[in-house]
């Protein structure tokens, strides 16, 4: 059986409020797919629709060939890791992990063997007899993980599983989850609002906002080529500037930024008029000539220095300069000129549609 997950035109409504507008996604077999977005964007709603805990108001959900819209939650054969782990408090660690296997009427010996394997995989076999109240947050997380994949589900769902852990443990668990997913090859759908986590863990990411999918792509694509200002602003840090396309010829647009600086940006289609560009802090640099401004603040962060520069018209820009690339440090109050890496920046038309290639 194919473990592809296909979602076509999914719609979710709460009364008059539409939480999901016509979302379509295809998640490939064995893929680590992340739904990323700010809180309230609909990512958890969509995940719970896949799990069967939310009703589906429109659209079709398929696991491979099988349409699952009307399959009750307990028959969908999905593993799920909950945000707060949802460990059964009255059962021991191994009873928790065995729970789903018992529901599937797996033989006693096989249950024992598989539970042991699963606990070994998440490195908590010595804790098998403990009660959940005796476990730390990270250990509970591992139990939840083992409990979800031990049933060898066709799909694994994870709802912000790391959000209750401290920063160091989060990074550690993130790599455990990723390696485990690779090893077991389970199609995984992962929900998070943490863009760094999403970039680190995912094969592909769907960035969501206000019930819509804004962009689907690999972490690199999403970071380097945000298809709209929302994605540019949500993933990483972006400087937004108003500009005007004064000419367009041979796939290259002449863009005039605030009437002061002209750059040539490679574009995918002919365009003209008002536009918006976004540039990452590392896509801006100091030069002898360019847009004039004053350094307001500088923060030394080890491998790079982050500058806050105020342009003469009042707009603030964030610029990162890698310490290995430069010997000079700009002082607060210093007059500087800013230029752009025209090949890497993103350009959007007035409707927010991407123009840059």
């Amino acid at each position, binding site marked *: 059986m194919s473990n592809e997950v296909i979602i076509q035109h999914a719609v979710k*409504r*709460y*009364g008059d409020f539409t939480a999901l507008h016509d979302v379509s996604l295809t998640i490939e077999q064995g893929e680590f797919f992340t739904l990323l977005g700010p809180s309230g964007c609909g990512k958890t709603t969509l995940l719970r629709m896949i*799990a*069967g*805990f*939310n*009703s589906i*108001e429109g659209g079709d959900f398929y696991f491979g060939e099988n349409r699952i819209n009307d399959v*009750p*939650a*307990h*028959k*969908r*054969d*999905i*593993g*799920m890791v*909950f*945000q*707060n782990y*949802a*460990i*059964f*408090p*009255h059962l021991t660690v191994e009873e928790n992990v065995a*729970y*789903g296997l018992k*529901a*599937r009427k797996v033989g006693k010996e096989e249950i024992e063997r598989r539970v042991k394997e699963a606990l070994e995989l998440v490195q908590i076999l010595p804790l098998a007899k403990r009660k959940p109240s005796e476990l730390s947050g990270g250990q509970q997380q591992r139990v*939840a993980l083992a*409990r979800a994949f031990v*049933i060898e589900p066709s799909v694994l769902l994870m709802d912000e599983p790391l959000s209750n852990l401290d920063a160091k443990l989060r990074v550690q668990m993130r790599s455990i989850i990723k390696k485990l997913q690779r090893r077991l090859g389970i199609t995984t759908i992962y929900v998070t609002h943490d863009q760094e986590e999403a970039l680190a863990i995912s094969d592909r990411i769907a960035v969501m906002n206000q019930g819509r999918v804004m962009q689907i792509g690999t972490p690199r694509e999403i970071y380097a080529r945000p298809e709209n200002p929302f994605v540019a602003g949500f993933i990483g840090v972006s400087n937004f500037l108003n500009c005007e396309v004064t000419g367009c010829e041979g796939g290259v647009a002449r863009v005039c930024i605030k009437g002061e600086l002209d750059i040539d940006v490679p574009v995918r289609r002919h365009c003209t008029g008002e536009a918006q560009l976004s540039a990452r802090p590392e896509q801006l640099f100091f030069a002898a000539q360019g847009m004039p401004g004053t350094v307001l603040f500088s923060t030394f962060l080890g491998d790079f220095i982050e500058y806050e520069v105020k342009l003469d018209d009042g707009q603030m820009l964030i610029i990162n300069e890698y310490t290995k690339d430069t010997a000079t440090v700009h002082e607060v109050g210093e007059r500087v000129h800013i230029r752009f890496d025209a090949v890497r920046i993103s350009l959007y038309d007035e409707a927010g549609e991407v123009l840059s290639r």
Partner: protein
Amino acid sequence: MTDRPRRKIKLDFWFFVKVIVIFALCLFIVYPFYTILTKSVFSNKVEGVTLYNFQRFFSKKYYYRTLLRSLAICSFTTLFACIIGVFIAYVMTRYNVPGKNFLHVLIILSLMSPPFIGAYSWIVLLGRNGLITRTLTALGFAAPTIYGRNGIIFVFTLHLFPYVYLYTSGAMNSIDVSLEEAAENLGMNKLRRIMTITLPVVLPSILAGCIMVFMTCLADFGTPMLLGEGYTVLPVLVYNEYMSESATDPYMASALSVIIVACSMVMLALQKLVVEKKNYTMSTLRPPQETKLRGMKRFAVSLPVYLILFLALLPQIVVVCQSFVERSFSGVVQGINLNNYRAILSRLGRNIFNTYAFSLAAIVFIVIFGILISYVLVRKKGKAASLIDTLIMFPYVIPGSVLGIGLIVAFNRKPLILVGTAAIMIISYVVRKLPYTVRSGSAFLYQMDPSVEEASINLGVSPMKTFFTMTARMMLPGVMSGAVLSWITCINELSSSIMLYSGKTSTIAVAIYQEVVRMSDGTAAALATILSVTTVISMLIVFRATKGKVKIV
């Protein structure tokens, strides 16, 4: 969380639970009360629908003074219980009173003991023929009388101050020390700190306790019946109008019931208005530390607590002692023996059996329905759930005697004749105690994350099976400790039993009342001792099971 917009009604298990629960609540709460309501606007003196009964109530002193008396008793009791309860709560949470935990258990015990036993044993001490009265008279002093208004207030206060204590000490333990430290840091002296920070923050809890005291007082029947003599209060008047051979007027009794319920509703509305709106949620990082007092100071602080508790528990001690004393009919002591117990076993064995059998049956229903209803209220929100939520609150405002009358007038005719059966006793217990179990059950469910159930469903166990093997199982300990408390109040129940009992379905509480009225002190004491011992054992079980963290309020 759950969301099924405009979907067809699912004919699942929960649908039937909702239907059955709503039907039962309507049948045993709404319908009886509706019958009372309709009866109250009729009279055998006037034709047709009339407000005659209410007119008569508010124009004749014989009637309206009972309301004034009830209000007076409730107000004074609440005031005194508030002073005592807050004082003890403050002292117990802030100072090193010796034997603190034990005292806490004793306070809860004195609350759980049946109120009319207190009244009865104060009669034994301070009644016309009481131990203290006779001693003082022999010494040439005039003994204070326990009968009448002051006696009722005295007994009520000693019995009910634990409500205020429990609410207040709960709140005081949850004040973060840094609040008071901040006030101190800002230059407030100790008294002003208490007045400006501590008191206002715990005030909603104090008020909640006071309202409990007031409502219990208003509804209680046994104490004023035994102690009132000529001083008749509203619930006693209801009983007289309905039960006594001389002046039975079911229409007037119904009107009086409506008036009591109206009073309770006003109190409950007040509670919603004042208490719930002004409740502070605090994150208590550092609970308050107790101040270590020494020597005289410690003694001075602890002594009043011990004295009050001694007075509160004195009735229990007196009753137990009294139960072993055999007296002749004229009250002369015949000897110390077990004859009282022999007498009740031969004569009142049926009452003892009934008490335990009915209460046990009631508890089984209370636990089952308590769990199911809590689940519907918390997890299956909707129109049906909010209807149940409203109906389940009704018994809070309907005093036992009123519910008793309601059940009688509703079920003494076809198609459903229940009067005189064991069923009607059990029904009245279930209906009256169910709200408490539902409240503790839903409180538990609110703090239990629904994702635990979802995890079970997700792992392949059907929602139905998940409920029975997972949710209900996890709820059981919490619900059980609530149920044991309900069990205690059931075995001690008097106000509805006295209305509903028949020769075959009489209980211990009813028998005690009758024995006291017949001046048969010894047997009454033996019966009361049985109840007290059962109460103490049950409470100890709850303390054991909850590791001392029992929630009464």
